[in-house]
């Protein structure tokens, strides 16, 4: 498998402040890679380093075999990448067609290629009828779609997308997500910055969780399993009384919490450890209505790791 993106101890500091610290990861050809983290975690800074927009402080990173630290490689890297920044950055006084056509010219696409690609992407994203409309008059969703088309106009090897569905209404976000899934089917390599966990879970082959430094990396399923223990939710017939809660606190339960008529906790082995819990509730006068054992979600993993 070819690693299209490869980093080793990649670090970026602004003064004494580390925005990205010792990042080591790789992204394979044809993979959709989710880069998860809260605001200020270093996601945008990482993408900007990959796109040779800002310099690294230390460490190494290669994109398509080119070194982001070498000045002579930076233009080669920018030729093989496409960027959808967090702010779409369209030229608002140009039409949708002219926005794409300009970038086609910058990437040395021939007249015929530009015509074909402009039409293909505008049709694919449902914007062909609006091709002669100024981009500034577009809705947020239409702008985002046009920005994606712009990043794809030269058929890049890798597409960097920085929060592509942030600030979009659910319908527009779904259109963008569906388009990313379509690109995934076409085996396009995509590096997706997001803090939308549901989106990452649905779209990405692998995800990394970052909060300045890398916290975890793997498939969404691997990360879900990486949290030890399983969550049990017990439904009671009435609100959990103080006597019931005091009884439960005597047991070795992790993350015990109660809300209304439910009690939630984490145990290593629910098959063995849930019976004494039920027994304790009944002895304390509580009546159990239901017991549900649920695995950890990507959200649990994410929250646990970014709070470290």
């Amino acid at each position, binding site marked *: 498998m070819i690693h299209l993106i490869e980093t080793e101890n990649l670090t970026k500091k602004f003064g004494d402040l580390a925005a990205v610290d010792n990042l080591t990861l790789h992204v394979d050809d044809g993979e959709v890679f989710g880069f998860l983290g809260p605001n200020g975690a270093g996601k945008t800074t990482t993408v900007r380093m990959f796109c040779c*927009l800002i310099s690294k402080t230390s460490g190494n990173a290669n994109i398509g075999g080119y070194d982001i630290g070498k000045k002579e490689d930076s233009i*080669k890297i920018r030729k093989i990448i496409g960027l959808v920044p967090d702010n779409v*950055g369209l030229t608002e006084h140009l039409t949708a067609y002219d926005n794409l056509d300009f*970038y086609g010219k910058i990437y040395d696409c021939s007249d015929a290629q530009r015509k074909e690609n402009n039409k293909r992407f505008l049709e694919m994203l449902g914007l062909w009828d609006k091709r002669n409309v100024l981009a500034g008059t577009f809705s947020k969703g239409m702008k985002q779609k046009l*920005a994606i088309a712009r990043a794809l106009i030269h058929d890049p090897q890798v597409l960097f997308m920085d929060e592509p569905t942030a600030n979009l209404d659910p319908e527009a976000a779904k259109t963008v997500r569906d388009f990313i899934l379509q690109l995934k089917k076409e085996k396009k390599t995509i590096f997706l910055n997001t803090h939308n966990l549901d989106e990452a879970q649905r779209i990405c082959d692998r995800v990394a969780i970052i909060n300045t430094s890398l916290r975890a990396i793997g498939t969404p399923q691997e990360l879900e399993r990486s949290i030890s223990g399983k969550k049990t939710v017990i439904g009671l017939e009435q609100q959990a009384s103080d006597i019931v809660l005091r009884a439960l606190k005597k047991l070795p339960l992790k993350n015990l919490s109660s809300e209304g008529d439910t009690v939630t906790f984490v145990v290593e082995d629910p098959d063995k450890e849930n019976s004494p819990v039920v027994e304790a509730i009944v002895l304390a006068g509580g009546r159990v209505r239901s017991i549900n054992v649920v695995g950890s979600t990507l959200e649990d993993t994410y929250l646990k790791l970014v709070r470290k």
Partner: protein
Amino acid sequence: MRLSKVWTIAARDFKIFRRVKNVWYSIIIFPVVISVMFPAILEYLALRGSPGLAAPSVLPNLLNSFSFFLVIGAAYVPLGIASYSIVGEKVEKSLEPLLATPLTDGEILLGKAVSAVIPTLVAMYAAAVFFMVGVDEVTFSTFGYYYFPNWNIATLLLVLMPVAIVMSVLFSVIVSSRVNDVRSANSFGIFILFPLLGVYLLSETSIIALDVNGLLIISGILLAVDVALFFVGTKTFRREEILTKWK
């Protein structure tokens, strides 16, 4: 440096300018004022109202001073264009995707400069033609010959005006990196006119002469300023600076 890419950027900016009224005002108003106002002043105030100013011995100095306003105009016009060209991109946040393309910083900067220089040159040369024809019409009876064109105006238009435009564009680039709206960029950009207005005042008080030699000396000084501004401008217009330090 690929000139085709420089032209692609400039051509896109021309397309944008066509749709921005403020840029049109910048390009049109000052040249029209210069080309119409000064011949009109000569016609109604100097030649008819104050015959002393129309004397053949006094008139050339007055015309040279008036001609110098073409240079001041040439420095003023690109302020509006270059400010919009760069600050406009900042406001629309369209610089980041542009910077992520294989264009070099120099190609982008030069493209932006060309898009400000060409409309200015066209507007100011057109203004100069109207100015010269208008002045010749008015002064022919005094001189007995057409005063323009002459070496003075040729030096002014072909040497001094281009270096003044480049100075203004480079200054606009530097100013644009520090402000967030076109109006502020224009307000700060006006400072670049002060040295030129100073030259005009010195010529009015006869401390310096705006003859060919005087114009060449001023051009040399502005060229040195251009070189200094170019170094500051290229340092300012770097990808990392733009993305991390520009306001």
